[in-house]
């Protein structure tokens, strides 16, 4: 229903849900009447890693095996990682202007410019530059920040820690709310309860979250003066700690970050719950006299793999898409770092931050797929 956007992330929950659907049922009834909510989705084809086993030709591997699946999935990550590095590398080379501008004094002579160019390797052909850069990156050397002179990797890693703190707090709020609202909405489908929960979800994915952040600051910091508006801890404190003095700085950014995952998880869980409740086995369970709480247990068990996959992706979006919220709240995370790298034209830092965030995202995706295969026996059969 939604498209991909980490802010609003859209599309993704559907992508996983339908991806799984096609894994389970084959390359799929395009219009499954029970799942009309998912018919227009980002991805109806099997995951690329699975195309070989689950191709149009209908070939299937005989032995389902998590390890084999994991190995295949890991092999698929290698070209992706290299392409991601290539995109990050090229990003700096599409920037208008000479990459030397930032380090070169304004009145530098031609010879000095040529010398520096040779020293930085900018005179070599692009593919060679890329190879050398990749080699250094593999050794953990992403260059030094132009603004601070410190190694990019260390700067990024310190900031990522803060982003992870924020993402985890937001995940706890957003996923809990999303699961609860989704289960309730799916169970009471087409009633006013469903309508209220669905409205929450739609509002969650439609709200410009940087604006929501401002609103929360207006209400809780400016008008009520309950919580601090910006920063990540009382002045004088350099590192994060899990006490109230620090936590109160986390509340508003975490709530702001959580609305998109909340909306998406609600919609996913609602669709899954409705889907499962309309299946024959539920009727059989009820006919056999199982109480509704027991039925619910089955719903949760069946919805878990897809819901977990959606939540895993959302976590990735929160890590990578935090720049707007971190800017609003001056939260010293990777997004804030990215923002300052952009405006100081600190290209090595820009490149390094994007590379590391994208790699986080790729590996999180990998983990989600493997975890999903491990808990859902249907997937490794592909």
């Amino acid at each position: 229903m939604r498209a991909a956007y980490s802010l609003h992330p859209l599309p993704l929950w559907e992508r996983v849900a339908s991806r799984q659907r096609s894994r389970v049922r084959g390359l799929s009834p395009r219009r499954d009447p029970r799942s009309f909510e998912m018919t227009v989705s980002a991805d109806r084809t099997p995951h690329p890693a699975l195309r070989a086993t689950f191709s149009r030709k209908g070939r299937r591997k005989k032995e389902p095996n998590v390890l084999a699946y994991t190995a295949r999935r890991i092999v698929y990550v290698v070209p992706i990682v290299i392409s991601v590095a290539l995109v990050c590398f090229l990003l700096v080379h599409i920037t208008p202007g000479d990459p030397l501008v930032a380090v070169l004094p304004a009145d530098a002579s031609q010879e000095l410019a040529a010398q520096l160019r040779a020293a930085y390797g900018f005179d070599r052909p692009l593919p060679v530059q890329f190879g050398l850069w990749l080699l250094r990156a593999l050794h953990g050397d992403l260059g030094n920040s132009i603004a601070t002179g410190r190694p990019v990797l260390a700067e990024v890693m310190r900031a990522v820690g803060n982003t992870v703190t924020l993402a985890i707090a937001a995940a706890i709020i957003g996923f809990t709310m999303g699961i609860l609202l989704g289960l309730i909405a799916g169970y009471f489908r087409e009633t006013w309860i469903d309508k209220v929960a669905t409205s929450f979800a739609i509002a969650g994915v439609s709200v410009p979250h940087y604006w929501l952040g401002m609103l929360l600051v207006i209400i809780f910091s400016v008008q009520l003066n309950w919580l601090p508006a910006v920063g990540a801890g009382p002045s004088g404190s350099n590192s994060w700690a899990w006490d109230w003095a620090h936590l109160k700085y986390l509340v508003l950014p975490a709530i702001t970050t959580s609305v998109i995952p909340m909306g998406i998880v609600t919609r996913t869980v609602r669709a899954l719950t409705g889907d499962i409740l309309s299946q024959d086995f539920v009727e059989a369970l009820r006919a056999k006299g199982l109480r509704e709480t027991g039925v619910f247990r089955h719903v949760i068990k069946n919805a878990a793999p897809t819901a977990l996959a959606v939540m895993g992706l959302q976590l990735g979006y929160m890590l990578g898409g935090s720049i707007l919220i971190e800017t609003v709240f001056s939260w010293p995370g990777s997004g804030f770092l990215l923002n300052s790298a952009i405006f100081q034209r600190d290209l090595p830092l820009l490149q390094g931050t994007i590379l590391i965030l994208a790699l986080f995202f790729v590996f999180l995706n990998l983990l989600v797929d493997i975890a999903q295969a491990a808990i859902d026996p249907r997937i490794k059969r592909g």
Partner: protein
Amino acid sequence: MSELPLSATADAALQAAPATKARGYWATVGRRIMRDKVSMACALVLLLIFLSAILAPWLGLEDPYKGSMIRRLRHIGTTGYPLGTDELGRDMLARLIYGGRLSLVIGILPVILAFCVGTSLGIIAGYVGGKLNTAIMRTVDVFYAFPSVLLAIAISGALGAGILNSIVALTIVFVPQITRVAESVTTGVRNMDFVEAARASGAGAFTIMRVHILGNVLGAIFVYATSLISVSMILAAGLSFLGLGTKPPEPEWGLMLNTLRTAIYVNPWVAALPGAMIFAVSICFNLLSDGLRSAMDIRN
């Protein structure tokens, strides 16, 4: 002459039969969405916002660029300034309405561009298949390795601030998504009998894609693209909010939100107004897209 009574009875029978006029698919979809109150309300709100943006110069509004140091940050409801004034004393109502012009263009244009490019790429990848499919779809996968906010900001950060650059960045973000949808719908259609029949009767690949495939996949891709508009609006305004899109003093909702941020301690509700506009447009497009989706699912 003997046929005459016969045809007369046939006519009578036809007249007596209930009028079952066969409607086309799109007519049915249109009728269904007209009955959906939520969708119609959203369409109305969007229509109002679009019309006022287009007609802004003829609405008799204040000059959105003309500021005045003596009337800065008036509250909502001040006489003469129904929505107050901004940090430079410019009329908020005029700026919000004029702001719609740029905000809507930079929010919607990327989706339209991506729709054209992505649909073409996806149909070609899906219909031709083979190596071309692998090449296109693997390239698309690379862009999926970036969270889309990050990708948009990275590209427009690298290209530098500017309206054109932010439109380019957002288009690049949405093309892979639309390509994936288009490809998967096309692979579903390409092996159907009518495509086979067209091929057997000698139609070329381009004709088949244009005539037989496009018509059958366009609806699904279109609905998906409409659902992207709300994301695009939020992202486009977000880029301006960061200072990567529009430059002052242009009225644009994201940028206005940014410049008014410093005013939240003085006049918070005026500062929040531009965000409310983004929210309204975004939620209306979302609901409209949902309505369109269920209207197009005729079986339900």
